[in-house]
């Protein structure tokens, strides 16, 4: 009789452990976004557009969240000639606003809302946030160099003219010459926004992707 109770206790604990594990697994794997109305209120997309976006999102990521590796893989497929993983890493950090290592549908759609339907101010804000890797409010030359190098990486090796070692650095120099008005070696958000608003090319290209959805 003692033995049977022992056996029963053991099986019960095993079952409990199992079910606890399953629960943990379940909660880690699936993520459901907020309701359609809330998202409609928070973003500038219409209901139909949100539906289309979610269908595409869920198709690629059935679990409801994108982690960084998947993100890199998806983004790299658009740039077959080069290596898009570094830039995808920066992009991921820009989208992952709560920095929990995964981009949920809300993060995704809020980012897209700014990029596609936001004001120029918001877009420039977003771009600044992208360049500011450590999110301290200043873009240093090193951060800019990392970003620009990652953009050049996406070009790959076979370019014309040949990509040289100092090309990204020169590009950074030009950028800082343009943006860094007080020559203190960093670019603040105000300098950035000011300078971009005065540049016609940049203003025009910001409007480029208005009709993407």
């Amino acid at each position, binding site marked *: 009789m003692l033995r049977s109770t022992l056996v029963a206790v053991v099986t019960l604990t095993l079952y409990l452990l199992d079910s606890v594990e399953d629960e943990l697994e379940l909660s880690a794997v699936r993520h459901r976004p907020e309701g359609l109305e809330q998202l409609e209120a928070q973003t500038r997309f219409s209901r139909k557009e949100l539906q289309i976006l979610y269908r595409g999102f869920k198709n690629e990521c059935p679990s409801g969240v994108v982690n960084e590796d998947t993100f890199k893989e998806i983004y790299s497929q*658009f740039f077959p000639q080069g290596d898009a993983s570094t830039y995808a890493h920066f992009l991921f950090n820009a989208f992952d606003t709560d920095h929990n290592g995964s981009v949920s549908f809300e993060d995704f759609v809020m980012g897209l809302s700014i990029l596609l339907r936001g004001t120029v101010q918001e877009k420039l804000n977003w771009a600044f946030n*992208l360049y500011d890797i450590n999110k301290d409010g200043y873009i240093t030359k090193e951060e800019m160099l990392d970003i620009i190098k990652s953009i050049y990486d996406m070009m790959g*090796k*076979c*370019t014309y003219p040949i990509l040289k070692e100092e090309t990204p650095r020169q590009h950074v120099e030009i950028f800082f010459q343009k943006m860094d008005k007080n020559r203190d070696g960093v670019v603040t958000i105000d300098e950035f926004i000011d300078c971009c608003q005065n540049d016609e090319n940049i203003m025009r290209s910001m409007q480029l992707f208005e009709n993407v959805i």
Partner: protein
Amino acid sequence: MAAGVAAWLPFARAAAIGWMPVANLPMPVAPTNKNKHQDELIILNVSGRRFQTWRNTLDRYPDTLLGSSEKEFFFNEETREYFFDRDPDVFRSILNFYRTGKLHYPRYECISAYDEELAFFGIIPEIISDCCYEEYKDRKRENTERLMDDLEDNKDSKLPNMTFRETMWRAFENPHTSTMALVFYYVTGFFIAISVITNVVETVPCGSTPNQRDIPCGERYTEAFFCMDTACVMIFTVEYLMRLFAAPSRYRFMRSVMSIIDVVAILPYYIGLVMTNNEDVSGAFVTLRVFRVFRIFKFSRHSQGLRILGYTLKSCASELGFLLFSLTMAIIIFATVMFYAEKGSSSSKFTSIPASFWYTIVTMTTLGYGDMVPKTIAGKIFGSICSLSGVLVIALPVPVIVSNFSRIYHQNQRADKRRAQKVQKARLARMRISKSGSSTAFLHSKRNGLNQSLELTGSLEEDQQMKKTTSLLESQHHHLLHCLEKTTNHEFVDERLYEQGYLQTALQNFPSRSPSLSSEEGITGTCCSRRTKKNMQPLSATHTHSHTHNLQELSALHIQCGEQQPLNTSRSSLNLMSDESGSLNCKSSGLVTTAIISIPTPPSNNSRASPDAPPPPNPDAPPLPNPGTDVVKISAL
């Protein structure tokens, strides 16, 4: 994770806003989405079963039937649906391909029916995802083999107008084709047996003469045995010569294993005839007779199992080698140990380490003749360890060999392994082509100057003209790549142009084109002119003979650009990008070769005036597996 990343293109384009503040050049105009209708459901009626899906889902793969305008031919006006009179079960897999990006092969389907459906809907079978691809290829191979067997059977029964030589060869290879062949087959078999038995009986001592010792039959009935031997050798020689005459490729026949065995079997006799009864060479002559035993190997023509055994041993060479190696190691170790252990004892048989080899081998194979036994205690201990380990060392590789044999015997995979490897290579090649199709498609459209019209200052009519040839998704993707080019102020080029540019900058000491151009007005001008300058450079190259080899490389190239791409081995890489350009690439590569040819043939250069018409674009033969032939054609300029 599902793999149709077309849905993420809007995201990638939106993220391109991150490049804008960094770019120094104006961006190209985005392709407009003219028919911006709401995404609608379309109904596909396949033999009565209705499937519904979004139109966008089907548009992901524009080079298939469902993704292109070809499906309009099947549109039924009254019911407002697309009707296909095909198998609905197989259609499930095909529609799932559009939905998930992965094509699966259901096991219960007949392979030829499945192939037909794929061909109808314009999907290449190489896209079948890894989980189902092995199964598909196995079934396909079985099917083709069966068809070939059927074909051969049919072939055997007819063919009245074969030459005498071909008839003979067929008779030799397949004894069942005619009665003469069968008779020949049995006669040779009989004589092989006779010859072998004769060799054996020759050495048996038969009866004693008044001399003391028994003499073997061979020496007693010398003439009888000599006649028998002569007869057999006659037959074998005639047979060998007839085979040699009938063989379609004599050189290959002479190199084959069976013919070598034949030759080795009959040579000793002839050598013996030639040699006199010289005492010195008779010893050598006797050893030559050993080779007569090779006649038994001639039986392998008569026995399929023997051939398979031989093949197994050949294919298990690595396991056999391992067995041999481990045995040798163990033998050396134990022989050394035994030698030193037995060194002390008197009158020990273990006189040297090589002498101990014999003991070790006999013990490890658990034979134990007993002619050499250890006498010291240490020797006995090590001897017992030796015999125990011998069992292990021999028992381990042997089951591997045995299982190999049974596997090969039952599956008969001889040529299939070789064929499978070739197919795998071809498959990877085709995947690489379609993957590189995305980048080459972009380069191709660039080269045809299409993107030039996408400048911000460009005109819209050219836009519309261009749209006909590329799908909207493709043009959007190209626009994205074009924006990246503008951001970095560098252009995508293919491998050869890149190398040529590299060589030129090295050789001509060109001032390095510093990309740090200021954002002045003249930028677009220099970009465009630089593009045309790029076309001119090969011209200047022809005038300097040192660069002619560059030129030929330039003309010989483009197909191989695909190889240089970093090969993304994940299945998800075969998304719409590569896929939509899959068959497009065949066409485009054909087009591209013509485009490339036109660059280096300047009208001024008479010697290179292109009487060689650009090689006909071969859209069905993937260029990658035959780069050699294409290269030869082009560089004949």
